[in-house]
């Protein structure tokens, strides 16, 4: 302990120099912490926004082979629901969806849209999801071919309540179809995000998709308590389903939201039917990989910055050695051992690096606070990456620990040379020398 306190005292003897050195380390830590926190936060927000948009965390589809085509369709779900409910999932956590991707057409204007089929009764769950008043919602669902869309879409197509518009889409087997809708309600959502999705009567959507019967649907969506539960639940579900179904292998991300309902699978052949279980993480696997890549890149950048900083630290400790050479000689003459001289200098290096880490993290924290206050609005294309218009940061303890260890190790090595030289000094020579 006494060496640590001596090292601390030594650092405070030249405050400006110590702060400058710590500052150099802090710059690297600041950049790495900010980049990692931004990446992790943005990916998390993206996943949560996608889960909200798509309406779930885990998605189950049943693929059927018909000739050379693979068609997603769930007609008889008794077996499937039995398995899902055996894992503790309630009806409130489930939604059976038919989503049609298509083009809305009105008065010569068009916009791409995902039409989500929803229960079209006054007690439907989408009323709360879209925050629509009871009266307005009841009026909307009274129209059998009514549609609820966002203000963003309505403004794009210059629509008003009661207007009729067309949806050009494809059936589940890829044939052309056109539906006619009447605007039942326009939500106040002006985000790009909200402009992608509209809601309509599931029975009508089923008809447009040409599903075999009204109880058929395309995807079973499971909404869990949190995003973090998704991978473990999906693994359990897949294991249980494997007892009764073939399981489809994982494929590339579906993030593109293909305009076709039919998905042609040329990469893996099968016969009959099989079940596919995916999570939001699977759908956004490319984003997650990008995030991991960015974290690695920032770590590599930190290493380069540290290498440059270590040159300065090594030179500074050489200077410290020459400044204190007589002091070291005196300590050695009074009985301090070589190892103890080295220990004190290395302690100084470690404390310096930890000071740099603390400064860097503090600066990054301030930057995150400041950037997090800025409201970029919900209208931009990047709204899906924002949390209600704000940037999101997520502090990752694991990467912080790795960065800290790297900084400490590099600084320790930078100071090792001068420390060894100081330790090898003969007391008499040291006392005689002056610079």
């Amino acid at each position, binding site marked *: 302990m006494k060496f640590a306190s001596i090292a601390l005292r030594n650092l405070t003897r030249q405050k400006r120099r110590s702060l400058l050195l710590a500052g150099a380390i802090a710059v690297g830590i600041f950049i790495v912490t900010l980049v990692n926190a931004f990446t992790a936060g943005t990916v998390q927000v993206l996943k949560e926004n996608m889960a909200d948009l798509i309406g779930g965390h885990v998605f189950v589809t049943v693929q059927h082979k018909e000739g*050379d085509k693979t068609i997603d369709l769930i007609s008889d779900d008794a077996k499937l629901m039995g398995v899902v409910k055996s894992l503790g999932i309630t009806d409130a956590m489930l939604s059976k969806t038919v989503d049609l991707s298509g083009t809305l057409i009105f008065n*010569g204007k068009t916009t791409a849209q995902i039409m989500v089929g929803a229960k079209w009764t006054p007690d439907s769950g989408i009323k709360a999801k879209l925050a629509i008043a009871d009266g307005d919602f009841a009026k909307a669902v009274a129209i059998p071919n009514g549609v609820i869309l966002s203000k963003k879409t309505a403004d794009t197509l210059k629509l008003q309540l009661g207007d009729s518009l067309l949806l050009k889409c494809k059936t589940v087997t*890829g*044939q052309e179809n*056109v539906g*006619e809708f009447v605007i039942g309600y326009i939500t106040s959502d002006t985000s790009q995000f909200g402009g992608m999705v509209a809601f309509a009567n599931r029975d009508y959507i089923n008809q447009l998709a040409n599903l075999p019967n009204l109880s058929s649907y395309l995807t079973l969506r499971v909404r869990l308590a949190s995003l973090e539960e998704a991978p473990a639940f999906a693994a359990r579900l897949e294991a249980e389903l494997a007892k009764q179904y073939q399981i489809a292998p994982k494929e590339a991300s579906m993030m593109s939201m293909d305009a*076709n309902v039919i998905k*042609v699978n040329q990469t893996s052949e099968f016969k009959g039917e099989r079940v596919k279980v995916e999570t939001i993480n699977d759908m956004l696997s490319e984003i997650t990989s990008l995030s991991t890549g960015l974290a690695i890149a920032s770590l590599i950048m930190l290493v380069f910055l540290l290498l440059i900083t270590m040159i300065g630290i090594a030179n500074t400790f050489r200077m410290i050695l020459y400044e204190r050479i007589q002091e070291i000689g005196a300590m050695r003459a009074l009985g301090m051992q070589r190892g103890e001289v080295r220990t004190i200098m290395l302690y100084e290096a470690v404390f310096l690096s930890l000071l740099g880490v603390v400064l860097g993290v503090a600066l990054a924290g301030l930057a995150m606070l400041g950037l997090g206050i800025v409201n970029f609005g919900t209208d931009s294309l990047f709204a899906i990456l924002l949390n209600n218009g704000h940037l999101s940061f997520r502090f990752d303890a694991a990467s912080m620990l790795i960065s800290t260890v790297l900084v400490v190790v590099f600084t320790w090595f930078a100071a090792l040379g001068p420390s060894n030289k100081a330790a090898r000094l003969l007391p008499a020579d040291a006392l005689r020398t002056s610079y």
Partner: protein
Amino acid sequence: MKKIVFAAMFAASVAALSAQAVDYQGILAKIDEMANFQNQDISMSVTLVTDKPGSDRSVKKAKFFRRDRDDAFLMLIEQPDVNKGEGYLKVDDNLWFYDPNTRAFSHTSIKEKFSDSQANNDDFSSSKMAVDYKVVTGEEAKLGKFDVYVLTLEATSDKVTYPMEKIWVTRDKTLVLKTEDYSLSKRLMRTSLFTNYQQINGRYIPLTQLYVDNLNVGEKTQMTMADVNIGTIPDTVFTKSYVERVSK
């Protein structure tokens, strides 16, 4: 005696009427026969001019090769520069799109639109109307100065793009002059006009085709064929490696 004469006259009338009843399904088979080249390959230059309200006119030029006996075709876009090298290769039921920028093939659908135009990918395939459709109703009519049959068709499977079509076919040479394509909900989606037929080796090719979008008013594509050649195209033309090689 009168009864016998009346019965004979009635039978003769029925026979005569039967002889005159039109074999509408046979007309579909005839359309296919007139449009397809079973033992020969066909190549031509194609120009697509697409108009969309609010956008500049798009002009694309391509080289087209077709082999009906293998149900294969290749469309290689030559102009504009931004699309140069893009290719659509169909063999049997597989259709691939080649992007020269990524140098990768992606599987696409015969039911998709061709290169952001009003033509569909399957408009370039050999004609299989007799297999893909059945005649629901047929009647005689006039289309301009032409005497035509108007046939209402229903798809026999979900492999075709449009579940329902209406076609105007000349009575003399069984040439399709006009088609109306309908969605599953029986809404008119596209109107196509075929003119300027050229006879080659006993077959007919419409050198001018106009596709009009009935949902997006103002959107249309005119396709003009030129330099039509009939002969034998090397087998290698209908391969991915050929597409990659010529797209460099």
